[in-house]
Structures are given as structure tokens and as C-alpha cells.
């Protein structure tokens, strides 16, 4: 029910009582501004945190082998454990349902790569196509390996951005042949990786091709696994332990032997990270709620003061025929209007400042401080509701006071 007359009356009151309006408006705007800034900076910290700890896939488990350190079941210590293709099959069959991806890997360091006059040494990794999900790498040109490459044992490779830069300079490597350790491979794709320079100097080739070329056997070095994202951090840790235990059993390794079969489960790191994130989130939440409470108290005090200050005016209005309802609605609409407007102004200033800060505080571990709009709008609504309630109680009191008492109030 829109009543233009009522709004004109309210606007006049607002306009003619600038100090009062400014006072309550300032409180709200300031509360929302602080809320936006603190929340934004908190989010900036969170962003930094996420970037630092989210280089590779957060869900990864790597398993590789070494020498046994303990004698077990009559076997000596110092025995070299070697994964084979059957271990891959075993893991897929036994644990495939809890995995998102699994890829075996053969890795050769310091493989010489030659293209025309240029040459350099790189780490050469032989993997399955789904290995890509384990790295945070992104294909820049061409494509990654596919199953057809593996079936045909094609001599194709995907190279890191820096490999391309080293060997080809400004030119594109796509479709060119590189000599890797004496064998010629065709470049089918390039990738970039935010994980850093070393991650961008890898060369990936089809697992089957490389396995045949280097040794012509069924041996492999390592498994890269990503676990089902539905697993909780604790479940994922248990899953990693189970994989290690099963493989140890299969290779007749003492369950307590940490050397022969090694498991690097990112979930363990994730647990620490997620605890720290939780703490960070709690701090942000605490700051946010604290600011809001301060704002709510501020607006409540101001509303009490405003109504007190207006007691006489309200008495006059009542003597002239204002009903209690019209008094209450006048005060409340005024309060809601100012709160909403001031809240919006605070939000605008806050987000502008955050945008202005941008990434310039990166050295203080604050990246892209920002606040989701719905959070700020939610905060403004909380303040509006608080302002309304805070306004309602004294307004109700003022409306019920006998006009004669209000008129005698000086």
C-alpha cells in the first residue's frame, strides 16, 4: 500500500532533521562499511590460503616403492620392491569404486630432448590420459594423451609451456618432432601449470609406448590416484592407509615398513588445511557478527534517542488527530528508509575500496579481497530488521504516551 502523502511527510522530516538523519545514517553506513571491509579482507586471506595449498589436485594420493627396511616372512630387508601392471589391475579391481582416477606412471629424469639445434634435459613421464586431473595443468594448445595413443603405442608427447619455450622459442611446437633420448616423438599438445616452473618442464608420453621402449617389461614406478570427492577427509586418510596396507600385504612387506611402499596422501595435508580454513572462517564470521552487533546496538540507541527527542512533536501530532498507528508507521518507515539507504551507501563504499585494493596487498597475504553481494545484502537486511525493531519499541511507547504528557515534556 503506497501512500505518496505519507512518504512526502517522511521525506520532509528526513530533510529537515539533517543531523538526526546523518547520525543514524552514518552509524548504519559505517557498520556496513566495516562489515564489508573486514569480511572482504578475511576472504582475501582465505583466497591466499587456497592458492598456496591448492596447487595440485587436493584429492591426490601418490604411491611409490623403495627398499624394504624390515625383514618379513623370511624375506630379508633391503629388498627392492617393484610395482607391475598387475598391481594396477589389482588396485582398479579392488578399490576402483572409491577412486576418481588412477594412473600408473613411469618417470625418467634428465632425458635429453633435441629439436634442431636446441637441446635440454627434462623429466619424461609416461602416464594414462586421466593423469591430467592429478596435476592442475591446463592444455594450452593441441590435446592431452588419449586411450588411442596408448592402444597404438604412438610415439606422441605433450610438453610443458617452458619446454616449448626452450626448444622452439616463439614458434609453436605442435606437430613437430622432438628427439627424446634417441627416439623421435611428435608433439600433440602443450600445457601450462600454475604450480610453478618445474611443473611446466615436464614431458608426458603414453604409458604403454614408454613401457615398451624402456625395458620392454611390465614394470612401473608409481601410482597417481585421485580419490572420490565424496569421501570426507578422515575417510580419505583411511582409504590411503588401506591402499598402502593392501599393497604391502600383496608384496609381502611388513605392515610397519615405511620404506618399501610409500604413500603420500594429500588428504593428510588437507586435514590441516581444512582445520585452518575452519578457524579462518570462524574468525571472519566472528568479525562479521561482531560488527553487525555493534551496528545493531548503534541503531537501537539512535532510535531511542530520536523518539525521545521527538516526544513533543509526536504529542502535537496526536493532539491534531494523529492515530497511534500513523505515529508508529511514520517513525518506522523513516527508520527503514534511512537504514536501507545508508546500508547501500556503506556497501557501495566498501566494495569500491575492496576493488581498489584488489591484489595490491598481496604481500600481506590478501588476494582479491571481496564479499559476496548476498552476504552484504543479508547484513543490511539484518540491520534494517534491527532498526525496525529498535524503532518499533520506542515508537510504540511514544504512540501510547498520552498527548498531554508529551506536550508537557520539554
Amino acid at each position, binding site marked *: 500500500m503506497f501512500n505518496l*502523502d505519507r512518504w512526502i511527510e517522511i521525506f520532509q522530516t528526513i530533510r529537515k532533521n539533517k543531523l538526526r538523519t546523518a547520525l543514524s545514517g552514518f552509524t548504519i553506513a559505517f557498520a556496513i562499511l566495516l562489515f564489508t571491509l573486514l569480511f572482504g579482507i578475511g576472504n582475501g586471506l582465505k583466497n591466499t590460503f587456497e592458492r598456496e595449498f591448492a596447487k595440485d589436485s587436493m584429492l591426490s594420493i601418490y604411491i611409490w616403492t623403495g627398499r624394504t627396511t624390515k625383514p618379513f616372512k623370511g624375506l630379508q630387508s633391503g629388498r627392492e620392491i617393484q610395482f607391475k601392471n598387475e598391481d594396477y589391475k589389482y588396485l582398479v579391481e579392488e578399490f576402483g569404486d572409491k577412486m576418481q582416477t588412477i594412473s600408473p606412471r613411469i618417470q625418467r629424469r634428465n632425458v635429453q630432448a633435441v629439436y634442431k639445434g636446441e637441446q635440454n634435459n627434462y623429466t619424461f613421464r609416461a602416464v594414462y590420459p586421466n593423469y591430467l586431473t592429478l596435476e592442475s595443468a591446463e592444455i594450452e594448445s593441441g590435446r592431452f594423451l588419449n586411450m588411442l595413443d596408448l592402444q597404438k603405442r604412438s610415439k606422441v608427447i605433450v610438453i610443458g609451456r617452458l619446454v616449448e619455450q626452450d626448444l622452439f622459442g616463439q614458434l609453436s611446437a605442435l606437430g613437430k618432432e622432438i628427439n627424446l633420448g634417441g627416439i623421435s616423438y611428435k608433439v600433440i599438445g602443450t600445457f601450462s601449470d600454475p604450480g610453478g616452473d618445474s611443473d611446466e618442464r615436464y614431458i608426458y608420453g603414453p604409458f604403454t609406448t614408454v613401457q615398451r621402449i624402456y625395458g620392454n617389461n611390465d614394470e612401473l614406478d608409481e601410482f597417481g590416484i585421485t580419490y572420490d570427492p565424496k569421501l570426507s577427509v578422515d575417510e580419505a586418510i583411511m582409504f590411503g592407509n588401506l591402499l598402502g596396507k593392501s599393497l604391502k600385504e600383496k608384496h609381502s612387506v611388513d605392515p610397519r615398513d615405511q620404506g618399501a611402499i610409500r604413500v603420500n596422501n594429500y588428504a593428510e595435508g588437507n586435514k590441516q588445511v581444512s582445520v585452518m580454513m575452519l578457524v579462518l572462517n570462524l574468525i571472519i564470521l566472528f568479525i562479521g557478527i561482531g560488527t553487525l552487533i555493534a551496528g545493531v546496538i548503534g541503531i537501537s540507541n539512535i532510535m531511542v534517542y530520536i523518539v525521545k527527542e521527538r516526544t513533543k512533536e509526536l504529542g*502535537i501530532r496526536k*493532539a491534531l*488527530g494523529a492515530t497511534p498507528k500513523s505515529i508508529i508507521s511514520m517513525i518506522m518507515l523513516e527508520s527503514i528508509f534511512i537504514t536501507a539507504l545508508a546500508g547501500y551507501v556503506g556497501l557501495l563504499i566498501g566494495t569500491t575500496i575492496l576493488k581498489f585494493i584488489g591484489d595490491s596487498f598481496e604481500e600481506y597475504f590478501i588476494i582479491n579481497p571481496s564479499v559476496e553481494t548476498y552476504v552484504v545484502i543479508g547484513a543490511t537486511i539484518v540491520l534494517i530488521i534491527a532498526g525496525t525493531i529498535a524503532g518499533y519499541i520506542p515508537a510504540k511507547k511514544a504512540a501510547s504516551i498520552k498527548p498531554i504528557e508529551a*506536550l508537557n515534556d520539554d
Partner: protein
Amino acid sequence: MIKLQNLHKSYPMGKESLHVLKGLNLHIKEGEFVSIMGSSGSGKSTLLNIVGLLDEHDEGTYHLNGQLIEKLDEKKAAVLRNKFLGFIFQSFNLITYKNALENVALPLYYKGVNRKERQKIALEYLDKVGLKEWANHLPSELSGGQKQRVAIARALVTQPKVVLADEPTGALDSSTSHSVMELLKEINREGMTVFVITHEEDIAKETDRIVRLKDGVIISDELVNKKVKV
């Protein structure tokens, strides 16, 4: 117009209660110009508050314009005040941030008159009290007499049945007081019932009927001006 029978009012004062009005009987007919005289504490302000529906009586009956006033809720009282009563206060009680015209127009706002109409009527009444040129001035820019004229215009603007004036000249000097009383007389001559409360003998003498109040009872009720109404 106003008919009071055996009206009682007392105020609680701590554990005791102060009996202010002790069985008042008063009948004011339409078109009368009545003053209530009495020293402070005689109960005259209480009487005005009750008549003005700003306060409630404890016992007895009160008829306003033939309507029995009892157990009024705030809303009904507000509507009746707006419809039947115009107030003039000693301290003017203008809204400080509204100019003269807006002050006069305010009762019309609560009556539900539209904005244009309000402005027009309010200006007419300001003209009537001789302040048309001052329409856009704030109360702080007006003299005491001018403020009271604005208040009178405001009291009249809804065309009430009764104008209630509480010490209308209390804050004014004698010549200004006189001109304000002249204005009230003029309003009365036009047929309005005017009800003045004062403790000044001079002011009371300007009215047609003086009711003297002492300690919550009426001690005398006399017609003073012999002039006959046409």
C-alpha cells in the same frame, strides 16, 4: 456542545491520589465564548485536557456534540480530536521544522485531505489570521503573537466544533494578548464555540461567560458581556 455531569478526576501521587476535579457540572452550548478562571492547582488544565480528549475522566459523564465520551481508545480519540476539536496552547506547540503553512496544513493531513487541497485551505486560514505573507517562514522566524496566530489558524483549519485554548496569551505581552483575544472573539462571532482557560482576569473579561474554578469545584458561573448576539 459540551456537557459535563458530576465529573471526577484524580491523579495517583505515589501511594496517595490527588483528587483534582470533584464533581464538575458544566454545560456549554454551541457558539458560546467561555473562559475558565482559576489559580494554578484549581484543576482548570485538567478540565481542559479531559474536554480536549487528551486525558480521561474517572467518574461522571462527558458528552461532546451529543456523543457520550467513554472508554475511548487512542484511535477513536484521535479521530474525534481531529474532527471536533481545535487546540491552542500557551507554548504554541508548532512543529519547529515545518513552516507556517505546513503547520497549519498538518491537521488536514491527518484528516486525509489531499495535498493540493491542504495547501489551499491552509493558506486561506493563514490569510484569515493575517499571516499570508509569512506562510513560508519557520516558527523560529515568527514573533510570539505571530506564532499564536499560526496556532489559531491550525486550530481552525479542520473547521472543528470547539476551539480549546489553554492560556493562549500566557506567553504574550499585553498588546499582543489583546489582539489574539480580538481574533478569538472574531472567530466566536462567526459561530465557533470557544473555550478559554486563563488565570488572567483581563483575558477572562473579554469572554462572554466566566466559570471560576477553585480546588476542583466550580465556585461561580456568570455571564459577563451583555451584548446580544445577532
